[in-house]
């Protein structure tokens, strides 16, 4: 028996089924492409990285870690080419420079680790994916929650997150070549006391 209601139901049913199938196909294709290209994604090299200056100061504010916290900013050079992260399902790439460290105290209780973000950038177009920056000041002032940053050995990494048009989010990191490895590790200096003028 034909009726408007039945037609409406069958049309919406078919549309919904095909939508779900299409989304599943897109997700499967993205993951397949990602696994095929995995070697490419996981071997994007850092072509230059150098920390030119480490600025530290003491801040006392809730926005900077609380009272008397050593805050730090970096001034660095960075270049790498992220354009191979772009496929048909890449809406944006979020690239971020992180620093990882461990507390040097020996005892297990009270031991702490931390990971902070110095800088990040949203890239929405493949044409902008070649990063070549000199003497950039890091975006965020960073601190340690549990103690002061000084004397901590910080390991710097450049990481990325692909935001798709539809489907799963993907994460990874840029490979640091051997000759640049020493540039990505540094020890945080103590705060330089300002000389008091008489």
């Amino acid at each position, binding site marked *: 028996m034909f009726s408007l209601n039945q037609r409406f139901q069958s049309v919406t049913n078919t549309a919904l089924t095909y939508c779900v199938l299409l989304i599943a196909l897109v997700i499967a294709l993205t993951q397949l492409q990602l696994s095929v290209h995995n070697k490419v994604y996981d071997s994007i090299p850092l072509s230059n990285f150098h920390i030119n200056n480490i600025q530290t100061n003491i801040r006392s504010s*809730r926005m900077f870690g609380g009272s008397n916290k050593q805050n730090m900013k970096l001034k660095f050079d960075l270049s790498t080419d992220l354009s191979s992260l772009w496929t048909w399902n890449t809406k944006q790439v979020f690239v971020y420079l992180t620093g990882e460290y461990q507390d040097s105290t020996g005892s297990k*209780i009270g031991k*702490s680790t931390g*990971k*902070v973000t110095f800088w990040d950038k949203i890239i929405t177009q493949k044409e902008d994916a070649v990063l070549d920056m000199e003497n950039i000041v890091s975006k*965020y002032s960073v601190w*340690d929650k549990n103690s002061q940053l000084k004397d901590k050995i910080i390991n710097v990494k450049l990481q990325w997150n692909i935001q798709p048009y539809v489907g799963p989010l993907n994460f990874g990191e840029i490979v640091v070549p051997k000759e640049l490895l020493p540039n990505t590790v540094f020890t945080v200096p103590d705060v330089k006391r300002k000389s008091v003028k008489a």
Partner: protein
Amino acid sequence: MNLRRELTNVLNLCFIFTGAFMFWKALGIVANTSSPIVVVLSGSMEPAFYRGDVLFLWNRNQYNNVGDIVVYEIENKQIPIVHRVINEYKQVSSKNSKSKKKDKSQDLDTTQYLLTKGDNNNGHDVPLYGHGKQYLQKDKDIVGTVKGYLPQVGYITIWISENKNNQLIFYGVLGLAALLFN
């Protein structure tokens, strides 16, 4: 008008609602979270997420990484917030439990503290956390980590929930359609 048929239609409508609710709860159990699917309400993560985008959450991870996009809910504040983790601090402390186990490693507890920021915001989220709170705690405040993304599909829920008339229209049409047709 056939009473038996109308009652069957009402029952069918109930089945649809309970079915949807069961699916939602089952997904919540699998992902270990109170809301496995959320709709983005603000533009603070643009251009990654816009209003009305649907996010799928997962909460079986013990810790979060820097760069993860998480949904968190502050106590006494109803609205869940979707932002990115920018700083992460882990702290080992002895457990509060008074049981004297010989295995000392069992008595250690690692708490992870997170600082978040919206990609589209200028500063981090400390002002959003409320009085005296400077960090989120992974095990207490995090609802889930964003794993999957569907654009714009959730806009209908915003359309319905942000306008009382729309709400009435939606439920009215739904009820009428279920009773009249079939």
